[in-house]
């Protein structure tokens, strides 16, 4: 492996990107990376491409004589593309990068993190000795949401620590990585039904449950609750089972999703919470808190507490007896 790499970047109009990628990929192994500008909509939940904005194409070549030759050929290729009439194509810009163990370097971003008052999230490659009263969840970040780094996850754990009683049955709607399901079990719950509409999340919940020796106490299912079908925020993938009242009631129900989905699911979430039980609803951006809070109260949530961190709100309350 070379000790250093050169990142070669070219910026041009979108219609030139296919041709530029082809020329650049001839002189660099592995493929190209493309950065298309976008704007964020819907409180940052949706990224919409900016269709006419310039696009940047990048390749990586070794910082050696072979790499210098590749760079010269790419410069030459860009000159020819300009002659063909692809319009403005920038000069090739260069940045030197040190070779890294990219397969493992990302792990540096993850440390043992303390959530709530006594919950600890530990990546499997870190060492940690639990202090008296602490519970430790081992969690390797994958694709699924719920790494412990987000304020909504932290607030849910804080609410869970207050809510969970030994032997509780818990429902986790939108389980992601399974972080909240596992925290609930470590805090004393007996069992969790974990639902998600993403197969990646269901697999991650199962894998993380197994890694914590809790596989037999987590039932992870590709499913959601009734109510999400009516104009869902993101169209639901086809064939997702929608569970009705037959799932029964739970001592604690968790829903760390987003304001609009919380609003849609509010009646179903309350129906799944036993009278006197706790509902924790989260993922609610501050400016949309009323959008979620009113339907939750209307559906029978009382003693509502709001936990706020940054832009994010978590509601915890009790279902009326």
């Amino acid at each position, binding site marked *: 492996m070379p000790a250093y790499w050169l990142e070669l970047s070219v910026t041009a109009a979108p219609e030139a990107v296919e041709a530029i990628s082809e020329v650049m990929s001839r002189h660099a192994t592995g*493929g190209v990376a493309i950065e298309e500008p976008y704007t964020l909509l819907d409180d940052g939940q949706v990224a919409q491409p900016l269709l006419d904005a310039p696009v940047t194409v990048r390749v990586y070549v070794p910082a050696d004589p072979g790499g210098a030759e590749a760079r010269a050929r790419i410069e030459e290729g860009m000159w020819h593309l300009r002659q063909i009439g692809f319009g403005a194509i920038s000069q090739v810009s260069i940045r030197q990068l040190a070779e890294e163990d990219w397969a493992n370097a*990302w792990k540096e971003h993850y440390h043992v993190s303390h959530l709530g008052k006594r919950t600890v999230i530990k990546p499997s490659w870190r060492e940690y000795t639990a202090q008296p009263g602490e519970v430790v969840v081992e969690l390797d970040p994958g694709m699924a949401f719920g790494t412990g780094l987000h304020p909504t996850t932290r607030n849910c754990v804080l609410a869970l620590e207050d809510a969970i009683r030994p032997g509780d049955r818990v429902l986790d709607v939108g389980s992601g990585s399974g972080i909240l399901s596992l925290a609930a079990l470590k805090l004393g719950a007996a069992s969790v039904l974990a639902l998600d509409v993403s197969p990646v999340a269901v697999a991650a919940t199962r894998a993380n449950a197994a890694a914590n020796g809790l596989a037999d106490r987590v039932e992870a299912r590709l499913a959601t609750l009734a109510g999400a079908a009516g104009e869902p925020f993101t169209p639901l993938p086809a064939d997702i089972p929608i569970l009705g009242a037959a799932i029964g009631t739970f001592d604690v129900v968790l829903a760390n999703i987003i304001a609009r989905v919380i609003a849609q699911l509010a009646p179903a979430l309350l129906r799944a919470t036993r009278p006197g039980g706790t509902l924790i609803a989260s993922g609610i951006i501050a400016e949309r808190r009323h959008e979620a809070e009113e339907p939750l109260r209307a559906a029978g949530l009382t003693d509502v507490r709001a936990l706020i961190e940054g832009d994010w709100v978590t509601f915890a309350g009790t279902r009326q007896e």
Partner: protein
Amino acid sequence: MAKRVKAIVKLQIPAGKATPAQPIGPALGQHGINIMGFCKEYNERTANMAGSIVPAVITVYEDRSFTFITKTPPAADLLKKAAGVEKGGGTPNKATVGNVSPQQLREIAEVKMKDLNANTVEAAEKIIAGTARSMGITVG
């Protein structure tokens, strides 16, 4: 969930062969996401497309979780297959290495139209004809 988008990265890489080396390592590494997790999932999803370049568009969220979708192969890949050539000409606009028929160009334009954000098939054809020309592939 409560996902908020932090970054979007598009990679044009060979199906079924993703590794943490360049360009994937440096392109995703700066966002702090689980690169092996991406490679494994990408290779699984594209295993039956070996031999093609299958672009992946990766959306990274604030908590470093991510999702990705795969796109249609780049026009250059489709052109090479249609013309029956291994690779494009060494220097754009110089040597002719192959030919595709107008019908083949139309078919590629139809496949690529959505990913190119082209409003009409004709607009997509124009872009793809330009790519063909840059590769030394003629249309006729």
